[in-house]
């Protein structure tokens, strides 16, 4: 019976030591991202039924000490699920916010340097020519203002096209990140399944896998399906990205100005549904081309309307009819707007008059200046300035919507994460208290061994020596 007490005390010693180990592990990982605190669950070991032929007067069963039943993660998978679903929308909105911030920088409004002001200056320059059609200085100033306008329109168009190219770069980087996550998930699945099969609980591996799943959620709208054997499968639009220890890489394809994410080695597009990859595709295939198109509408309206009037006019040096038919703007093969080079070289050729040889005639200059208020865009419902202002407001509105969505989504994700953290985060105070609790229990168990030892000593060395 005494030997059994030794065993009981020893079990206590071992169990408390394991608990101290776990508290140590928690403290060490207090700041590790994705780490869920671990708890040792202690259970009393199987009690010993004292054998007897008849019912003895003794108590029926004797305790045999403690066992470490398991070391488990304190984690609520419901919150993980919610966190990932909301992260998908957050990843999408954040990507849009970043992109719109860059787009807004391209427009650079409202400032004195924005296209709106440059358009105003262009129209004003035509009126100045109208006021002094004979004056070469006014004409030279017009060429300057028109060139500045054209240069900035081209710059904006080019920068938006560059943003579109950047989007493909980001897409490629993120897809390779998704591939790398998928690869690591497949490998973790393999290790976890193997560990579980041998009856172990691979807590830390599972934490790592959960962290990767959290990360993955930002990129795509993947659905996660846990399997009974402990592996998780990940599906994109019904097709597996990770199937137990297998994974299927994605690739980026750009053809005909449209970007798509495909299953590598196939021509099937991936159903992304949400996440930052989806946002990048949306930006590349819809938002940016739409904006470029609108700038091109402005460019074409400017060139066509101004040219139509300019063609029927006469420059200072045109002394007889018919009109020389010079255009004012030209659109290059690359889509750039520029002032007709002959006019830059000789501003006298700017056609301000509607009759030859009349230097004081400003009829064409006036008509061009009045294009400012002509409804030439949006199927005849908007002036060029209106159209541009609306475009800026649209960009601002879309950007604001993305910001609001991002802020709301972030608040939601943070709230869910907070709920997760309430459950899984390591509290140092708690661990310190536990450490002391287990340390004392360890000490007490050691003292119990000493007590048993003394009892044995009494029996072995002290018994039967009466009177010595």
């Amino acid at each position, binding site marked *: 019976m005494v030997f059994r007490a030794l065993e009981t005390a020893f079990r206590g010693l071992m169990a408390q030591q394991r608990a101290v180990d776990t508290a140590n592990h928690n403290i060490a990982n207090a700041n590790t991202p994705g780490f869920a605190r671990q708890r040792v669950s202690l259970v009393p070991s199987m009690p010993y039924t004292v054998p007897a032929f008849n019912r003895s007067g003794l108590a029926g069963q004797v305790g045999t000490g403690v066992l470490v039943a398991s070391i488990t993660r304190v984690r609520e998978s419901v919150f993980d699920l919610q966190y990932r679903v909301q992260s998908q929308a957050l990843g999408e909105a954040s990507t849009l916010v970043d992109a719109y911030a860059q787009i807004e920088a391209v427009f650079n*409004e409202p400032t004195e340097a924005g296209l709106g002001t440059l358009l105003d200056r262009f129209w004003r320059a035509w009126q100045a020519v109208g*006021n002094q059609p004979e004056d070469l200085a006014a004409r030279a100033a017009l060429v300057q203002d028109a060139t500045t306008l054209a240069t900035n329109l081209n710059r904006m168009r080019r920068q938006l096209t560059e943003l579109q190219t950047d989007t493909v770069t980001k897409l490629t980087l993120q897809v390779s990140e998704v591939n790398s996550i998928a690869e690591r998930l497949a490998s973790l699945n393999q290790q976890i399944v193997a560990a579980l099969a041998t009856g172990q609980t691979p807590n830390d591996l599972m934490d790592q896998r959960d962290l990767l799943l959290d990360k993955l959620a930002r990129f795509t709208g993947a659905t996660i399906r846990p399997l009974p054997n402990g592996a998780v499968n990940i599906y994109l639009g019904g097709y597996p990205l990770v199937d137990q220890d297998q994974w299927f890489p994605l690739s980026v394809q750009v053809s005909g100005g449209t970007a798509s994410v495909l299953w590598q080695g196939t021509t099937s597009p991936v159903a992304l549904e949400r996440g930052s990859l989806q946002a990048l595709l949306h930006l590349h295939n819809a938002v940016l081309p739409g904006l470029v198109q609108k700038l091109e509408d402005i460019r074409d309206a400017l060139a066509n309307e101004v040219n139509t009037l300019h063609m029927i006019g006469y420059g200072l040096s045109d002394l007889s009819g018919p009109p020389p038919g010079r255009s004012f703007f030209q659109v290059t093969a690359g889509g750039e707007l520029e002032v007709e080079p002959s006019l830059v070289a000789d501003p006298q050729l700017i056609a301000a008059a509607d009759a030859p040889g009349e*230097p004081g005639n400003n009829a064409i200059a006036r008509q061009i200046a009045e294009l400012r208020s002509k409804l030439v865009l949006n199927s005849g419902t908007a002036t060029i300035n209106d159209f541009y*202002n609306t475009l800026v407001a649209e960009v601002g509105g879309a950007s604001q919507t993305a910001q609001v969505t991002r802020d709301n989504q972030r608040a939601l994700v943070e709230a869910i994460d907070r709920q997760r*953290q309430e459950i899984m*985060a390591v*509290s*140092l105070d708690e661990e*310190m208290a536990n450490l002391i609790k287990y340390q004392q229990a360890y000490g007490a168990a050691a003292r119990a061994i000493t007590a048993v030892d003394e009892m044995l000593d009494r029996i072995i060395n002290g018994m039967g020596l009466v009177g010595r």
Partner: protein
Amino acid sequence: MRVTHGMLVDTLLKNLSGNLARMERVYQQITSARRISRPSDDPVGTATVLRLGSAAQEIEQYLANVEQARTWLDLTDQALTTIGQSLQRARELVVQAANDTLSADDRQAIWQELTALQEQIATTGNYAHAGRYLFAGSLTQTEPFDLSTDPPTYRGNSDQLQRLIDRGVTIDINVTGDTAIVPVLTAIKQARDAVAANDPVAIRSQLAAIDAAHTQLLAAQASVGARVNRLEAQRDRLLDAHTSTLRLASEAGDTDMAEAITRFSKEELTYRAALQAGARAIQPTLLDYLR
């Protein structure tokens, strides 16, 4: 609720950065004096600011046009006044020459003065402003009166010079030489011929032509005066519109300083408080009290 130190630190960092972001935004509004620095700050406001800014630019240009047109009309008026005075003097001379008692020599002297007056009127008709002839119609680079002929021939055209003074509104700024000055020159030439012929009856008959020319000159001057009045009214209207447009643009786009500074102080207070509270909250753990 179970709160850990990590969560406390996270909350502190999140709130501090949110606080700084709000402070930065108000700071930017104060230092730039603009309420809107990016279209997404207020998309509708941005469109309003752009539209009003553009309207102000448009009005400023019309104001500049009005000023230039005004200058041209003022110079035209001065020139016509000078011509009117010369014509007045010519009429006096013709009345004098019609006097039966005058000798041929006296009439010769009057003829010479009339010739000088005719030349002076033609020279006035050749007045230019900044290299542009006032009375040549749209042929502003051509001297309108050819002094080598007698009477000086008009080489301009009868085109009106027009200036935009409002959206879709133009004003004629010139008086062409053929309507106002050519009749004067013709009348004086005819009077000179009659004086040279030493014929008092013929001289008297020229007075009607001179008066008719004078009436035409006065009509031209009256029209110039009317147009100057119209320009002044237009300028007042444009100035009013400019002021109200700028005021609206300022309301839409400028920072309300009193409000912004109040908000900044509030954010600053919150930030300081958050720092202070944070510094105290994240410091102690149980470790500090275990010995």
